[in-house]
């Protein structure tokens, strides 16, 4: 009798413990699910700003964009039909010059870093590139003002280009280095074994093989600086008229967005929305091009 009672007690106890464990597991599972919910919610909330910004800019910008927008100069307040032709030309000109300055230098440095991976100079060079990438854009503006604008006696498109080139340089260097490092050593060895000089091996074998990756880096760096405003404030400065002289002040899309956005006039806001939409479209297209380049010219080994 007593034994049965005791057994019953143990059974009861066991049941109790089982139930307790079950409860605990249910609780843990609930926590697990709730956490996943929070993570997903947080992620979705984080993407909302982008959608809101894109939606708002396209909604406002689409009404501003027409033929006049591309061909006319900005008009004084009160007159309709103004455009951003000068800023568009200015932006393209500044970017072209900065590409000419930054791309060769960036690729050469990238080659150096991938070839001479472990020297002391390479270490400092890499460090310098990293630091250069982190410099606030407004500081680049000050520097170029002191280096070029002041000695040349005035604001100029050229100084703006140098500022942007300085900002493009780090990402071109990095993408070149990363791409070339991925290439197998055997490629180089094969070429050298055939008696091809070192410089020809690099320029005719290594660089063309990694061209896809290098191009991607270059295009991404263009997309990154196309909307930079701060370094242009004291360099390219802005210009209400059409100018193609790189030694004179010039307008650019980000500059007119800044100037018109902070003005109190509705017409000018309209132009700024149009310019914003144009700028974002350019950035989107550049991003899509990099995706295509990446897929087409994938470095495979």
């Amino acid at each position, binding site marked *: 009798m007593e034994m049965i009672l005791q057994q019953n007690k143990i059974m009861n106890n066991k049941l109790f413990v089982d139930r307790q464990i079950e409860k605990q597991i249910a609780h843990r599972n609930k926590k697990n699910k709730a956490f996943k919910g929070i993570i997903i919610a*947080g992620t979705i909330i*984080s*993407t909302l700003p982008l959608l809101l910004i894109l939606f708002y800019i396209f909604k406002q910008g689409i009404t501003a964009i027409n033929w006049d927008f591309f061909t006319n100069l900005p008009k004084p307040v009160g007159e309709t039909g103004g455009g951003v032709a000068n800023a568009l030309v200015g932006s393209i000109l500044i970017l072209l010059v900065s590409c000419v300055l930054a791309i060769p230098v960036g690729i050469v440095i990238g080659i150096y870093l991938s070839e001479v991976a472990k020297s002391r100079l390479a270490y400092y060079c890499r460090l310098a590139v990293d630091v250069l990438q982190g410099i606030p854009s*407004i500081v680049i503006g000050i520097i170029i003002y002191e280096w070029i604008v002041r000695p040349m006696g005035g604001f100029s498109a050229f100084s703006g280009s140098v500022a942007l080139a300085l900002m493009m340089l780090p990402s071109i260097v990095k993408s070149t280095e990363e791409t070339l490092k991925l290439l197998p050593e055997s490629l180089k060895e094969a070429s050298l074994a055939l008696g091809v000089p070192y410089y020809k091996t690099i320029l005719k074998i290594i660089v063309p093989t990694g061209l896809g990756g290098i191009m991607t880096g270059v295009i991404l760096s263009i*997309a*990154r600086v196309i909307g930079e405003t701060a370094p242009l*404030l004291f360099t390219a400065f802005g210009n209400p008229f059409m100018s193609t002289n790189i030694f004179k002040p010039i307008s650019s899309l980000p500059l007119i967005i*800044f100037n018109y956005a902070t003005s109190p006039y509705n017409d000018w806001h309209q132009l700024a929305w149009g310019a914003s939409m144009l700028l974002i479209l350019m950035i989107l297209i550049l991003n899509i091009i990099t995706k295509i380049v990446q897929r087409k010219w994938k470095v495979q080994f």
Partner: protein
Amino acid sequence: MTAIPYQAKRINLKEKVFKKTLTLSAIIVVIILLAIFFTLLINSMPSIKALGTKFFYDKTWDPVADEYGALPFLVGTLLTSFLALVISTPFSIAVAIFLGEYYQKGIVAEIFKNVIDLLAGIPSVIYGFWGLFVLVPIVRMIEMKLNLPPYGVGIFTSSIILAIMILPFSVSLSRQVISMVPAHLKEAAYSLGATRFEVITKIIIPYTKSGLFAGLLLALGRALGETMAVTMLIGNTHQIPTGIFSPGNTMASVIANEFSEATGKIYTSALIEMGLFLFVVATIINILGKQVIKRFTLS
């Protein structure tokens, strides 16, 4: 027969020139960086000499009276940056866990990755423009509800925009770090019956602590030097901000607003000194962050 040595000589010469060019270009970058530092230092010398450390604790910035105290801007810069970091951190960690653990591959991951990348691609000036027309009215409404002066612009508004802008930077790093956690650690925990939540909080986050910290550090570096959006949204007043809703100014925004109009040696030099400060702080944060990551990836 004589042509061969000649050719070989030429090739040798080209080889040398090529190698020299490579080395030279690497030296040039280092020189550029040093030149940047010394340009800032030399040009801020007049202000450093005239103002000394008073520059950092003097509260009045009045170019007309020749008084240059950068304290209001220092406070503004730190306040906006840290507030932005506080706002964006929960979201950046969430996105990093989402992309680094829950959805590492597949269409969902691709979509969100691209969206976050695009967020980094939108120019600062457009963030500012959008903020002026969308965020400022909302903040103004909140301020009216709270019985505060309805400026709309100010520290709080700039911090929100900054939080959105720095999110991609901390995400891209944290995501990589999280996806680098060794599978055997996670599997060991799963085999002991841990739920995914427990794996994340007890394995992944402790393991990636230093990497996540580096991500936040780099995001902070971005926030400190961010110029255009903040310039458009902070209100540009020269007083020390009294609360998170009051308008203010950051170092970068003061430079953006006043540099091209600055007259007088000390005025310009004081602005450049702020640039020097931003440069030094950004550089230290950058190097520190990179070191932390390097150590993390090596271990």
